[in-house]
C-alpha cells in the first residue's frame, strides 16, 4: 500500500517535471484557461520587478497579488534558480496532495464512525465492512485525484500562483478539526488574496460546535477572535510592507469590480463586455451577491451535519461563479470528489457531466484558435463553451447535494430499495 502511494507521488512529480521542461510549458502558461490576471506568473514577475525598482506595483493594472505574496515571491525570484523554482512548484503540488489525503483519511474515519452509530440505531444495514480499507481507498483516490487531475497538472505546469492557493486550501481543510490557529491563518491568507474563501470559516465553526458541547459558545467566540485578530494582523503586515493602502483596491477591489475583461473560463468577461455601462454596477452587485452571499446560509443550514460537504460546495460555488476562475480552482474541488464515493450510487448525471466536461475542455482551445488566430469564429463560440462548462459544474454540484439528501433519507429510514419485489426509486419533489 505504501509502495503504491509512493509510486503515485513519484509518477506525478515526474509528469509535472517533464512537462515543465518541455516546449509546451510556454503554451500552457499562456492559455487563458490556466492563467488569469489574478494568478499568472508573468504578472508576478512584473510586479516583483517593479517593486525592486522602487515603483508601487499596485499603481498599474498589472499586479494583483497581496503584499505578503509580493514579499514571498520577491524572495523566491531573487534567491531561487529556475530549477529550484520548478521543484518548488512540483513540491507544493505534492504537498497539497498529501494534505488532501490526510483530509480524506480524517473524513472517512469520521464517516465510518458515524455509520456505526447509525447502524446501531436502525439495525438495518448489517454489512461487515473493512473500515481500514475504506479509509485507505478514500485517501488513495483523493490524493490520486489531485495528483493525476489534468486540470491540476496544467495548472502546475503553467506556473500559476493558484498552486500556492491550493496548498493553503488544503491546509485549511486538513486543519479544520485539528488546529484553530492553522485553520484561521490559512483562511485569512486566502481571504486576503481571493476574498471568497472567507466562507470557509462557516464549516470550521460547525466543526467546533460538533466537537465539544460543553464549551461550545466559548469555542466559537474564541475562533472568531483568533480569525479576526489574524486577519487584522495580516492587513497590518501588508500595510507595513507597502506603506500605503493602495493594495486594497488592486486586490480586493479588483476582484469585486471586475475591471479586467480578458476571457477566462468564467462567466463575467462576456457579460460585462456586453452590458450597458449604466447597468454595470447593478449586475456586478448581483453577480457578486450570487457568488459570495446567496448560498452561504441556506447551504450551511442544510448541510450542518456534514461540514466537509459544506466546504466542498462552497469551494465549488466559488470556482464556478467567481470573477476570475481558472481550471486550477475547478481541479481542486474535483479532486475532492472521491470523498463522496458513498453518494455515487445516488447520483444521476454522472455520464452527462463527464461528457460535458471532456467536451468543453477539448472544445475551448479549438474555438479559441478559431476566434483569435484564424478569425473565422467569434467571442460567442468561446463564451458558449464556458457557459456549457459552468452548467456542467452546476449539474455536478447539484447532483452531489441531492445525492447527499437522498443518502441521509436512506440512512435514517433504513431504506430498503425493494418494495414488493421491484426496485424503488426515491422521488424528491
Amino acid at each position, binding site marked *: 500500500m505504501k509502495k503504491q502511494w509512493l509510486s503515485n507521488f513519484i509518477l506525478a512529480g515526474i509528469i509535472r517535471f517533464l512537462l515543465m521542461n518541455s516546449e509546451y510549458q510556454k503554451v500552457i502558461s499562456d492559455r487563458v484557461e490556466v492563467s488569469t490576471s489574478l494568478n499568472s506568473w508573468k504578472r508576478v514577475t512584473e510586479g516583483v520587478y517593479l517593486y525592486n525598482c522602487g515603483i508601487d506595483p499596485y499603481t498599474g493594472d498589472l499586479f494583483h497579488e497581496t503584499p505578503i505574496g509580493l514579499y514571498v515571491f520577491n524572495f523566491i525570484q531573487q534567491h531561487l534558480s529556475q530549477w529550484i523554482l520548478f521543484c518548488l512548484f512540483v513540491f507544493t503540488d505534492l504537498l497539497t496532495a498529501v494534505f488532501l489525503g490526510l483530509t480524506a483519511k480524517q473524513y472517512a474515519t469520521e464517516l465510518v464512525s458515524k455509520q456505526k452509530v447509525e447502524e446501531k440505531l436502525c439495525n438495518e444495514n448489517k454489512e461487515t465492512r473493512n473500515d481500514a480499507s475504506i479509509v485507505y481507498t478514500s485517501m488513495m483516490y483523493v490524493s490520486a485525484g489531485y495528483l493525476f487531475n489534468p486540470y491540476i497538472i496544467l495548472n502546475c505546469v503553467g506556473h500559476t500562483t493558484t498552486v500556492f492557493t491550493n496548498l493553503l486550501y488544503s491546509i485549511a481543510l486538513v486543519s479544520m478539526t485539528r488546529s484553530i490557529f492553522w485553520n484561521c491563518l490559512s483562511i485569512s491568507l486566502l481571504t486576503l488574496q481571493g476574498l471568497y474563501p472567507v466562507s470557509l470559516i462557516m464549516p470550521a465553526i460547525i466543526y467546533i460546535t460538533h466537537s465539544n458541547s460543553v464549551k461550545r459558545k466559548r469555542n466559537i467566540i474564541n475562533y472568531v477572535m483568533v480569525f479576526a485578530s489574524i486577519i487584522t494582523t495580516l492587513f497590518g503586515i501588508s500595510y507595513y510592507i507597502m506603506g500605503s493602502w493602495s493594495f486594497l483596491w488592486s486586490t480586493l477591489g479588483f476582484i469585486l469590480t471586475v475591471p479586467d475583461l480578458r476571457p477566462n473560463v468564467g462567466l463575467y468577461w462576456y457579460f460585462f463586455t456586453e452590458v450597458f455601462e449604466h447597468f454595470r454596477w447593478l449586475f456586478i452587485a448581483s453577480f457578486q451577491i450570487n457568488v459570495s452571499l446567496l448560498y452561504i446560509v441556506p447551504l450551511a443550514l442544510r448541510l450542518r451535519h456534514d461540514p466537509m460537504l459544506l466546504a466542498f460546495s462552497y469551494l465549488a460555488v466559488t470556482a464556478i461563479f467567481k470573477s476570475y476562475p481558472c481550471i486550477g480552482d475547478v481541479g481542486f474541488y474535483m479532486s475532492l470528489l472521491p470523498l463522496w464515493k458513498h453518494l455515487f450510487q445516488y447520483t444521476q448525471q454522472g455520464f452527462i457531466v463527464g461528457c460535458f466536461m471532456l467536451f468543453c475542455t477539448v472544445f475551448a482551445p479549438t474555438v479559441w484558435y478559431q476566434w483569435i488566430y484564424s478569425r473565422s469564429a467569434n467571442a460567442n463560440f468561446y463564451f458558449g463553451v464556458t457557459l456549457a462548462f459552468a452548467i456542467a459544474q452546476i449539474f455536478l454540484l447539484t447532483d452531489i447535494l441531492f445525492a447527499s439528501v437522498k443518502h441521509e433519507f436512506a440512512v435514517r429510514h433504513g431504506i430498503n430499495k425493494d418494495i414488493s419485489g421491484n*426496485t424503488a426509486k426515491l422521488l424528491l419533489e
Partner: protein
Amino acid sequence: MGLLTDPRAGSGKIIKFLLKWERPLCFFLYISGIVWILLLALPIFNDNTYFSENALLPGLVTKESNLEQTTKQYYTHLINEMKRYPDVMPYAWLAAKLNQLHLDVFTHNFTLIYPFQEQQFTGQNIYGIIRAPRAASTEAIVVSVPFRPIHSIYLDTAPSIALLLAFAKFCRKQKYWAKDIIFLITEHEQLGIQAWLDAYHGVTSGNGGVLISGDLPGRAGSIQTAINLELHSMKIASIDVKIEGLNGRLPNLDLFNLAQNMIAKEGIRQSFQRRFDVKYKNKFKNWWYHFNTLLMMITSQATGIPTGNHGLFHRFGIEAITLEGFEKPGQQSSDGNFYQVGRIVESIVRSLNNLLERFHQSYFFYLLPSTDTYISIGLYIRSLILIIGGIFVKAFSMWQRLQVSASTEDKKNTVVKQSKDDGFDIGVITSEILWAHICGVAIATSPFALTYVGKKMDFRTEDSIYFGFVAITILTLMWPFYSRRQIKYKNAALICVIALVELGTVLMCIAMHNFSLALLAAVIYVPHVFILPIMPKQNFTKFHRMLSFGWISLHPFMIASLIIMCYTYVNFSSDSLPLILFRGYRAIKQAFVFSIMDSMIYGNWLYNVTISTMFPIWFLFWNILCSNIL
C-alpha cells in the same frame, strides 16, 4: 431545475426506450445523417448566395482599365526571357520591370532545409508595393502569382505574370487607392508563399528549422485580402475559383461571391471545382450534378491540402482565393481577351479597396454545391450532429446498462464481494487508455526515428517511412494476440464508453476546423463502432471474425492506403491490374512522406491529428475486440 431534481428524468421512460431500441436508433440516426447530407444538394435545401458586406459595392465602379495590349507586350518579353533561362525565375527582368513602374521593389530569399536528408533548397520571391495615396499604409491587398519555369510539370502561369505587371502599371496611375497593393511573384509554388507569409508576419508556422523564411526588407500594412492568379493562356474561356485552403479553411463567402459575380459580369464562364453551372430539366439529374460538385468540394477540403497558393493565407486571418483561367480545349489562342480578364481583376481589387473593415459579415463555414448557391453551417452541421448523436446514444446506453448490472450485482452478493467487486478497476482502465494514447503520440513522432534507422540501412526516405509504418501496423495488429489478455466485462465496457465519447468529441472538434474530414471519418468509422459486440463471455463466431477484419481495414494506415489505391484505380483504370497496384504502391509511399512533410513545413495537421487521436481510439477498440472478456 426540473431536469436536475426530477429522478424520472434519470431512469424513466426515455432510458428504457433507449435501452430497448439502442441499435436501431443508432442506425436510424446514422442513416438520417447521411440522407440529410444527400438532401443538402437539392436546390430547395440551399440558398442563393448574396452579398452581406455593404461596403464592397460590387460592380458599381466605372472600370477604366484596358490591359490587353500591355499584357501582350509583357507576355512576349517574358516568354523570351524565360526561354533564355529555362530553369530559373528571371529575377532581374521582373525586378527591373517593377522598378520601371516606380514601385517599392524588394526580393525575399528563403531556404528549405529538407528535414530527413539535410539537403538545402533556396528560392526567391519578388514583390513590389504601391503605397496608397489616400491613407497611411495600414492595410494592404495582395495580388500574387506563382512563377513556374517552362519545364514545370504544372500548367504555365506566364500570362498571369504579364497581367500582374500590366495591372501594376495601371494601378500606379490611379489616385483612389486606400490600401497598399502588394504585387507578389513567388517561386517554388506553395513554399514561396509560405515563406513570404511567415517572413511578413515574423512567425514560423511549421516545425522550426525546416523552412527558414528570414526577414523582409519592406512591408506594407496588415494584409486584408489576397487574390492569387493562375491564368494558363492568353485566351481565357473559363475561370475557376478555388477556395479550399490549408486544413480545410475557407475564405469568407463574400469574397467568393464577389469573384464569381465579377467573372459572370465580364462574360466569361465561371466554374467551381472545374464544373460549370448546368441546369438540367430532370430533377434527379440536376440533384446528381449538384451532389457531385458538393462531393468534390468535400473530398478536396477533407485532405486539408490547399488547392492553390491562396490556401496558405487563411491561417493569418487573410481572406484569399485563386482565380484559375483555362482556355477552351482544342482552340488555339489567336487573339487574347485580357481586356475582360483585366477588368475582372480590376473590379475585384477596387471592391476590396472599398472595404471599411475586414471581411466578417458573411459565412466562414459553408459548403458549395454550385457557384451561386451555398449551404450554411447551420444546415450542414446537422448531418454530423445526427451521426455523432448516435455515438453518444450508444455510449449512454452502454453506461446505463453498466449501472443496472452493477445494482443487480450488489443485491446478489451483498456481503463478501461488496468491497472487492465494488466497481471498475480504475487502474486497469486508466493504464489501458493512457498506453493507447502514448502509442499514438509515439507513432506520430516516429518518422524521425524511422528515417534515422533507414539511413543507417541505406534506405531512401520514402522506403524507410513506408516500411516503418507497415511494421508498426503489423505490430499493432498483432499486439492483442501476443498478449492474450483477459479483461472483465465491466472494465471492457467502460473503456468502450470512454472511447466512444472520445470519438464523438474528437469528431466534433475536427468538424469545427475541417467539416469535410470529420464527416468522412464519421461516415466510415461510426457504423463499425455501432455493431461492435461487447458482451461477457464472447466466443469467436464467424460474425465476430468478419467484424474484426472490417476493423483491421479501418486502421488509419490501412484506410489511407485503401483510399489511395481506389484513387489510383479510378485515375488509371485503363492500365492492367499489376501496373495499377504498382502505381498505387508508389503513390502510397509518396503520400505518407508528403503528409509528414506538409505537417512539418506548412503545419498541416491531418497526419498528426489522425495518428494521435484516431489511432488510439482504433487501438482501444481493437484491444477489446481481440481480448477475452470475462
